[in-house]
């Protein structure tokens, strides 16, 4: 299961617009790279999304144009404490998930 690092701010109040950062471990293979002379097949994350207490707050279509171990930074409005559920899917149809807790006081 792929690893991800999620950064969520602290000291958040309801209504704050907060910055969320995520780094997902994934080679984002372009299909052009060679290893021992053999072409490595393309495999990149093509879809990712983030849900906050079940509601989608961010979605992206990515491609091989995004660097390996993709880093995404986006913003969202905080309401109440809840889970940030990340999901992603790659060209090999492998899903990945990661979770972080946002505390809103």
């Amino acid at each position: 299961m792929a690893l991800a690092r999620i950064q969520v701010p602290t000291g958040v109040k309801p209504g704050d617009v907060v910055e969320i950062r995520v780094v997902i471990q994934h080679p984002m293979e372009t299909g052009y790279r060679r290893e021992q002379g053999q072409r490595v097949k393309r495999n990149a994350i093509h879809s990712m999304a983030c849900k906050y207490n079940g509601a989608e707050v961010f979605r992206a279509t990515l491609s091989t144009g995004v660097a390996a171990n993709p880093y995404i930074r986006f913003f969202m409005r905080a309401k109440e404490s809840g889970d940030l559920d990340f999901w992603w899917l790659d060209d090999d149809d492998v899903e990945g998930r990661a979770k972080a807790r946002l505390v809103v006081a």
Partner: protein
Amino acid sequence: MKRRAFLALAAFPLYAAGQANVHISTTDPLVFALTKGRDVLPGKVKLDLPAVADNGNSVAMTVSVESPMTEKEFVRAVHLISERNPVRDMATFYLGPHSGRAEVSSRIRLNGTQRVVAIAELSDGSFWSAAAQIEVREAACTDGS
């Protein structure tokens, strides 16, 4: 150079500012698929890329759009398009009023010196754009061992 030609050339930037479709042609099939032929106006979008990247494998990028991000007026999506990458459609970020701020950062791959264009789609159906020219010293994808 003839005086008239010189004046015409000098005046072009003034002419171009505010003119639709200066960053990218709407007949570009990739753009047409997004806009269905609607004008793409320069403005509202800011695309932050360094002028020079030593390594095309990982280039820090931030794209932001001026918008109140309210239920009435918000950014629906931001598309990143490459001029020279084998895959020109780099990424699309889908936002909404829940985003609070229309700003996304990532790290992209660039196959050589080129222009990158960001097109923002607003809730009122309009399209806005920004472009950045970036010199890449070592190409990603088709270069390397």
